[in-house]
C-alpha cells in the first residue's frame, strides 16, 4: 500500500513537471492583445550636411490589454555607416487601450555622405497579463520601412553631382583654360617674331 501511494505521488510530480502558467484559469476571460500599424514607408531626401525629421508610422492599440511598445532600428543596408546619423522617437511608449494612436518619427541628425540608407523600425510589444490570467503571453509585433536618400543640394535642379566628379570637372576645365591661354600667348609671340 505504501509503495502504491509513493508511486502515485511520483506520477503527480511528473504531470506537473513542465506546466506553463495556470491552464485552468487562463481562458476564463477573453483578453486580446492587438496592434495596428500604419506604415508610411518613409522615403525622404535629406541634403548633405543637413538634418530632417519625418513621420515613420502611426501605431494603435487594437486589443483589450495595454501594450508597452519598444522600437528598434534594424538597418537593411549600410545604415550604420558614418554617412548618416539617424535616430527615431519615441523608442518606447505605453499604448493603452482606447488611447489615441501614437506617431513615430525618424530624425536624420546629420547627413554626412551621399547614398541611400534603408532599414526598418521593428516594433516589439509586452503585455501585463491580468492577475489570474496566467500562461505564456502571445503578443503582437510589426515593422515600418524607412529609406533615407542623402543628396547633394543640386538635386533640386534635377541633377545630383558627386563632389569628386565636380572637382574633376572643374580641374579639367581650368586645365583646358590654361592650355588655351598659354597656346594663345605662344601663337602671339610667334606672330610677333615673324
Amino acid at each position: 500500500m505504501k509503495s502504491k501511494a509513493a508511486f502515485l505521488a511520483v506520477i503527480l510530480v511528473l504531470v506537473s513537471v513542465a506546466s506553463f502558467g495556470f491552464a485552468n484559469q487562463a481562458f476564463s476571460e477573453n483578453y486580446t492583445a492587438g496592434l495596428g500599424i500604419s506604415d508610411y514607408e518613409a522615403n525622404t531626401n535629406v541634403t548633405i550636411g543637413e538634418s530632417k525629421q519625418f513621420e515613420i508610422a502611426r501605431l494603435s492599440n487594437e486589443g483589450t490589454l495595454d501594450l508597452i511598445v519598444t522600437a528598434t532600428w534594424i538597418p537593411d543596408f549600410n545604415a550604420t555607416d558614418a554617412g548618416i546619423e539617424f535616430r527615431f522617437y519615441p523608442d518606447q511608449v505605453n499604448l493603452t487601450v482606447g488611447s489615441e494612436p501614437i506617431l513615430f518619427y525618424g530624425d536624420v541628425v546629420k547627413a554626412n555622405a551621399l547614398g541611400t540608407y534603408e532599414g526598418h523600425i521593428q516594433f516589439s510589444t509586452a503585455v501585463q497579463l491580468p492577475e489570474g490570467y496566467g500562461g505564456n503571453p502571445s503578443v503582437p509585433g510589426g515593422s515600418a520601412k524607412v529609406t533615407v536618400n542623402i543628396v547633394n543640394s543640386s538635386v533640386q535642379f534635377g541633377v545630383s553631382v558627386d563632389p569628386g566628379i565636380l572637382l574633376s570637372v572643374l580641374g579639367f576645365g581650368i586645365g583646358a583654360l590654361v592650355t588655351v591661354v598659354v597656346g594663345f600667348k605662344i601663337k602671339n609671340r610667334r606672330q610677333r617674331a615673324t
Partner: protein
Amino acid sequence: MASLLVSFAHAATSGTSTGTATVTSPAPTINMTDCNLYDSTGATVKNNTSLDSNNLEYWINFTVAENNTMADLHNVTIIAWDNRGQDVADADSQRYHYTWTWVESTDTWACPLSASYINQTSCLDPGTANADESYTFQLGFKLSKVANYSNGGVYDGWQFNITAYDDAGNVGTFGNGTGGRIQFGVASYLSITITDAAHTWEGAPGESNKAVDAGGDGKVDFTVLANRVWKAQVKGGGDLTKGGGGIIGLDNVTQYGSNSVGDSVSLTTEFADVTGITSQAAPSDEASPAEVGVYLWLDIPAATPSGDYVYTLTVQVAT
C-alpha cells in the same frame, strides 16, 4: 395709287410682334484652383500624398459657382475611388470606392457606404436657399482601414471626382480626367489582434508533440485587418525558462499554419513565416477581419526539472 401707298404705310406702323427671350440655366462650375485635400487641421495640403486609413480624418475643399445662386443647386456629389482597375461609376466598397453627397433641399450630408466615413461636424455647405453665387464647400471624411493600399512612393492610385447638379439638371464636374484632378495614395495598414493573449502546455518530461492549450483548439488564434496582401510570422522571445533555474530550448516549440505536427518547424528568435498563412488577401470589410491561428506543439526533454516555464510568443503581420 397714292391712297394705296398710304394704306400700306398705315398697316406697317400699326403692326405688333410678340416673342419671348429664354435665358437658359447655366451649369454650375467647380473652380479647380480652389480644390484641395487637407489634413483635419486644414493647415497641410495632402494632394499627392498617402493618406492614413486608420481612423484619421481628412478634408477636401472646393468652390462651386452657380449664376442662379446656391439655391439653384440640387446636390453635390464627391467620389473617391481607386483608379487602378476601378471606375468612377462603380459601386461603393470599403476597399475601392466611396461616395459622399450634400443635398440642397434638406441641407444634409451623407455617405451611403457608412456614417463612419464622414464627419458631419467638419462639413461646410451654404445651407438651403442661399443667395450667394459661389460657395466653398468642405467635406470631412475618413477611409476604411481596408481601403486599398497604394505602392509606397506612388501617390496616384486614388482620385477624386466632384460633381454639382442644379435643379434644371445641369452638371458641373471636376476631376474625372480632364481639367486637372486631385490624386492621393493610401498608406500600408496592417493590424493583428491576438485572441488568445496567453497559451500553456502541461506535460511530463519526455513527452513530445504536446498540443498547446489556447482556448482549447490547439492553436493561438488571431484576427487580421489589412489593406494589402499579407502573411503571418512568428518568433519566440528566447528559451523557456523557470524561476530558480531550468531551461527548455526554444527549438522544442514547433509551429505550423494547420493541425499537422509532422510539418511543423521549430520556433527561433527570428521571425519565420507561418506556412499556410501566407499570401492572404485583404479583408473586404473592416468589421470582418480575417480569422486565423498558428498551431503550436511542445517537446519536453527528458529529465526536465518540474516547474512553470515561461517564454513570449510574438506574432506579426508582414507583407
